Each structure stands twice: as C-alpha cells, then as structure tokens.
C-alpha cells in the first residue's frame, strides 16, 4: 500500500485515495467548437509515459480534495504532490 502526501492532510495510506487519471487535461471551454477528432483526443488519448507521470488523485476518504501528483510509473514512487490549479512542477531528480 502506497503512502500518498495529500497537499492538505499530509502523508496518508493509499486506501484513503482514489486515482483520477492523467492531470492537466482541461475540459475545453467551448466543446462545440471542437472537431470530432479534437474531441476524441480530449476524451480518450493520454500520454501513458514510462517514467514521470502527472496524475490526479482524490483524498476521497479524507479531505475529499482532488489534487495532482507526479509519480514515477517505473518505480511507483511519488515525486511530489500539489494542489489542483497549480502548474506541474519541473521535475528532474529521480524518485525514491
């Protein structure tokens, strides 16, 4: 069971959290302006990187907040977590 650092509550066990998919994919302001291809891209296509992945988590059995995390998909260790709305941190150092 992973330890996840909620930006509001601090380090808590994974069992209190729910995964929320890739982060920083904003819903288009005017969906009707998008072509079918653009809409499909928004709805379904994700980067799925091997390595650092910015993703959403929700502290559902805690403060209830959605927040973002950068997790290394190879090591499964979290590099950092940050509040929704904040920019993705520039991550270079490796996770432990």
């Amino acid at each position, binding site marked *: *069971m992973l330890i996840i650092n909620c930006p*509001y*509550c*601090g380090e*808590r*066990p994974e*069992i*209190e959290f729910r995964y929320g998919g890739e982060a920083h994919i904003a819903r288009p302001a005017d969906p009707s302006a998008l072509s079918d291809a653009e809409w499909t891209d928004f709805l379904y296509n994700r980067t799925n990187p091997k390595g650092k992945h910015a993703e959403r988590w929700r502290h559902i*059995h*805690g*403060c*209830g*907040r959605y927040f973002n995390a950068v997790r290394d998909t190879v090591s499964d260790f979290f590099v950092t977590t940050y509040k929704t709305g904040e920019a993705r941190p520039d991550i270079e150092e490796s996770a432990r």
Partner: protein
Amino acid sequence: MSEAARVSGPDLGHGHPYPGVSLAALAEGSKPSASASLKLLPATARLVFRGREAAIGPAGEAFGVALPREACRFNTNGTRSVLWLGPDEWILLAPGEGPAPLFAAIETATAGLPHALVDVSSRSVAFDLSGPKAGFVLNQGNPLDLSLDAFPVGMCTRTVFAKSEIVLRRTAPDSFVVDVWRSFAPYVWQLLEEARRGA
C-alpha cells in the same frame, strides 16, 4: 433507480430473510472493559458547513465555536465542537440539541455570503471508544498511525474502518469518537467488538 446488482427474470428464486442487526441492542449488550470500552453516544445536531472565506468567520461566531483553519483539527466550546473535514468543509456538532435553531442562526449570520449549510443530524451515529487499548482496537480496521505524536488530542479526520468510511477524532489520550453513517454503524460496531476481544 438503478438496481444493477439485482438478479431478476422468470426464475424468481432469489432473495433471503434477513432479520437485521439493531444497533441499540448491540450497544446494550456491550460489556465495558478496562482495556477499551465502546459506548453509543446520544443524538447530536450535525450541520455541514461549506463556503467561501467571507462566510467562515460569521458561521463560527453564530455557532459559538470558531471553525478551525488548521487541517484535521477540531475546536470545542462547551458541548459544541467544529471539525475540519476539508479546506472548505466543516461539520458542526451540538450534542443533545435540535438542528433547526442552529441552522437558522447560522443562515442569518451568513446571509448573502457564498456558503452551503446542510442538516445531516440523522446521517450518522457516533461511538465513544475509550481505554488504554483504544488505539490498538481501532488499528484493526484503520490504517492511520494512532500514536499520540501522529494523532494528537484535538485531531479529527475522515478515514476508513475496514470497508466503511468513518470520521475519527481523539478527545483524550485514551478516547476516540467514531462517527459513522447510520447504515454502516452495525458493521463497524461489530468489528470494533470483535477487535476488543483479547485486547
């Protein structure tokens, strides 16, 4: 109404009797113990307050207990308490009181300020778990570090107990209060009783 889990069709052989479990009966049958005792707490007015910055102060003033701004902490004044549940979410507790006058007072104080106040007095029930082994009992379903350093008196949080969500708070070094949604209460109570055996 979605009844996705339902099995139906011309073969109507499903269903079963289920006498059910009465929480009151469970509470009555609970034996106190020197290591950890379990007690059903009386009815409480419970109001959820959520809102923008401007409404937070007036809400606390109207209730008589300031809304804590530190994460996972609760404030108490007399019998009333306010628990921080999230950065814009608090639960206001007034044991033994009715929710209506409190609701009205807070709505008056916060009129025109963006907020939401909802009566959830009936949504949950609360247990007191007290004794030197209270933490040991809780840790049989709750994964948090319940040492006094990590979970001091005055701390509260939504968390889990086995397959149920709970709101947990520490009222004294050896005392916790577990607030649990009504329909999950017999399940949590019975697991706590099981955890108390041999504690």
